[in-house]
């Protein structure tokens, strides 16, 4: 009986030209988004790889010079383009893709394509993720809004129920029939997506489990939508009312809610603008904070401590280069400031993300969006992991330069020149993305709520079908 209903639902939808053209249009959009995303990933990955090689070569090609001068020469750290960013580029266009690593300064990220884009470009960016999150639910609305309401309106529901067909079987058949019609779009799209990713030569052991979780997340999301739309259809007095109500829910939860929630999150957990942030960092560097002295004062105290430690009266009597020690101490003091401000900033973003995550109670798109970005390696947590890794590398690199100077520049300080062997002693910057478990832990609320929405979808279909009246 169930198979008969599924087959009939699918046949009806398939024969409806409007549904067929909507499905093909969506498939074309998805294919376009995937191919564009793939081309972007390939181009950006190649670009960044080449740029990273070039900056490393520049670093190694420095002639003999003072190590501090080399630390100022610096090096770029490029955020590697995750293979799965093909599906969802997440915060990458907004967060920046590279940062300049140098002595004394923790620089902001640069190259943010969204900064150069117009508002329309930002809003209309087509990715596989936005298509799946916004347009597939719209197709579900088109496919399923008339399921019960249309049959009730036409009178066929009365005849079906009079046959003794259990309403829940009918509901399940309608849900699975609609799912089969969706499959015509989603199965080829998923196949194309996997082929697009595999062809990019990423790490399959890293990517495929994430793709599997992503597929599961989207399935839950679509089940939730199917349940909501079928429940509306079962209750609505006509197919027009069902369509209008379902479109209203779509508009509220997928278009408006994310924007409203973002504003609420910003209002509840405000983060400073770039200018305010830079000014606050500068002020703390100069004046100190929470009992920590400003840099000038700290350096005077540091000199007294070093002289006492080595039991000498002046820095010229030290067995090490005071300039090297002072540079290292300056880094330590500055790093306290950077850790404090960047820590607050990231915590602020994390708090905003939590508001968005829990708002998925009313708008499931927020849960699937967070998971999609997380699993694609393009969420705030991945960006933070990269920023922290880049900063750790900066500290290691600058520390190596300052340490060499402290040991070897005794009496000559800034006239000391290190050989290129020192530059090579600092290995290349390599970023390892957080493991899948860490990503899922960051997005546990989204996982939980998406699971809840999937279950709710099933319950809504069963409940609505159980109460359906001719």
């Amino acid at each position, binding site marked *: 009986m169930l198979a008969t209903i599924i087959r009939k639902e699918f046949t009806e939808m398939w024969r409806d030209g409007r549904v067929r053209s909507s499905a093909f249009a969506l498939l074309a959009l998805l294919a376009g988004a995937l191919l564009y995303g793939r081309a972007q990933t390939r181009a950006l990955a190649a670009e960044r790889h080449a740029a990273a090689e070039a900056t490393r070569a520049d670093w190694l090609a420095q002639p003999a010079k003072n190590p501090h001068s080399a630390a100022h020469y610096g090096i770029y750290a490029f955020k590697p383009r995750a293979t799965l960013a093909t599906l969802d580029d997440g915060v990458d266009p907004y967060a920046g893709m590279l940062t300049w690593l140098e002595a004394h300064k923790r620089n902001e990220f640069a190259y943010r394509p969204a900064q150069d884009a117009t508002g329309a470009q930002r809003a209309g960016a087509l990715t596989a993720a936005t298509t799946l999150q916004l347009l597939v639910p719209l197709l579900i609305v088109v496919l399923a809004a008339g399921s019960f309401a249309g049959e009730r309106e036409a009178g066929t529901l009365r005849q079906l129920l009079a046959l*003794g067909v259990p309403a829940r079987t009918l509901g399940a058949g309608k849900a699975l029939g609609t799912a089969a019609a969706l499959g015509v779009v989603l199965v080829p799209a998923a196949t194309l997506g996997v082929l697009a990713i595999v062809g990019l030569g990423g790490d399959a052991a890293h990517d495929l489990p994430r793709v599997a979780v992503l597929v599961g997340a989207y399935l839950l999301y679509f089940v939730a939508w199917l349940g909501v739309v079928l429940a509306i259809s079962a209750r609505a007095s006509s197919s027009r009312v069902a369509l209008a109500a379902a479109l209203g829910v779509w508009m509220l939860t997928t278009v408006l809610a994310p924007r409203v929630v973002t504003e609420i999150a910003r209002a509840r957990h405000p983060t400073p603008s770039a200018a305010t942030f830079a000014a606050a960092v500068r002020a703390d560097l100069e004046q100190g904070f929470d009992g920590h002295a400003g840099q000038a004062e700290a350096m005077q105290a540091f000199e007294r401590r070093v002289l006492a430690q080595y039991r000498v009266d002046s820095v010229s009597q030290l067995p090490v280069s005071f300039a090297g020690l002072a540079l290292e101490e300056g880094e330590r003091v500055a790093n306290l400031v950077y850790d404090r401000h960047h820590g607050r900033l990231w915590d602020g973003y994390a708090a905003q993300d939590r508001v968005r995550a829990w708002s998925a109670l009313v708008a499931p798109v927020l849960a699937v969006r967070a998971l999609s970005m997380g699993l694609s390696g393009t969420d705030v947590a991945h960006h933070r992991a990269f920023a922290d890794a880049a900063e750790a590398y900066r500290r290691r690199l600058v520390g190596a330069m300052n340490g060499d100077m402290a040991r070897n520049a005794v009496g000559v300080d800034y006239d000391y020149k290190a050989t290129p062997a020192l530059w090579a002693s600092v290995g290349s910057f390599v970023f390892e993305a957080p493991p899948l478990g860490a990503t899922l832990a960051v997005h546990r609320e989204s996982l939980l709520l998406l699971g809840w929405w999937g279950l709710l979808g099933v319950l809504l279909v069963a409940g609505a079908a159980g109460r359906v009246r001719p």
Partner: protein
Amino acid sequence: MLEAHALTKQYGDRVALHPLTLRVAPGELLCLLGANGAGKTTTINLFLDFVPRSGGRALVDGIDVAEAPLEARRRLAYIPEQVQLYRTLSGIENLDYFQRLSGAAPLDRAALRALLDRVGLPRDAADRRVATYSKGMRQKVGIAIAIAKQARALLLDEPTSGLDPQASNEFSALLDQVAILMATHDLFRARETGPHIAIMKQGRMVDRFAAADVGHADLERLYLDHMRS
């Protein structure tokens, strides 16, 4: 067998069906004759459990429809005044779909086609989409669905509406060995089809007699007398 025992339906203070008691044995046909609002369709809806009863019982083959609606419906066939079918499916696809869902043993394509032939659907129409059908053609497919179900009881709500006279007569001949409850306001059809006629007015069964006992003119007079009283 169809039975109603003091079956009633109220919507708030308004009584749509006063306690109704009737029994239709296998092979019998009872026509419920009455104007709009007389309670005919309410009676049918109560037998289908499409509306909850306010009192009494409705039984199909001894099964209480409110207690086991699916069981009861599986023993019933129902033809509404306007049979509605899926417009994008052909006549034979519609018949196949409804027949498979009815719980009866599935019929092969040839058997379905033979059934459509039997109810008088033009052969070239069976594979055409129902969107192109006339009302009469849809009724014929509806009748084929009812026959294919091989139900023990039939509920008919103006079933011959839209059928040409020949098809109506063929339809009457097809219905055999089942308990039939037919709602109609067509006096001529009631007399021609129903061995038993019950006149309903404002939710009450006001009269019941054998069709053979009255001529057409008598039936018309009797009906009008009841409507005026």
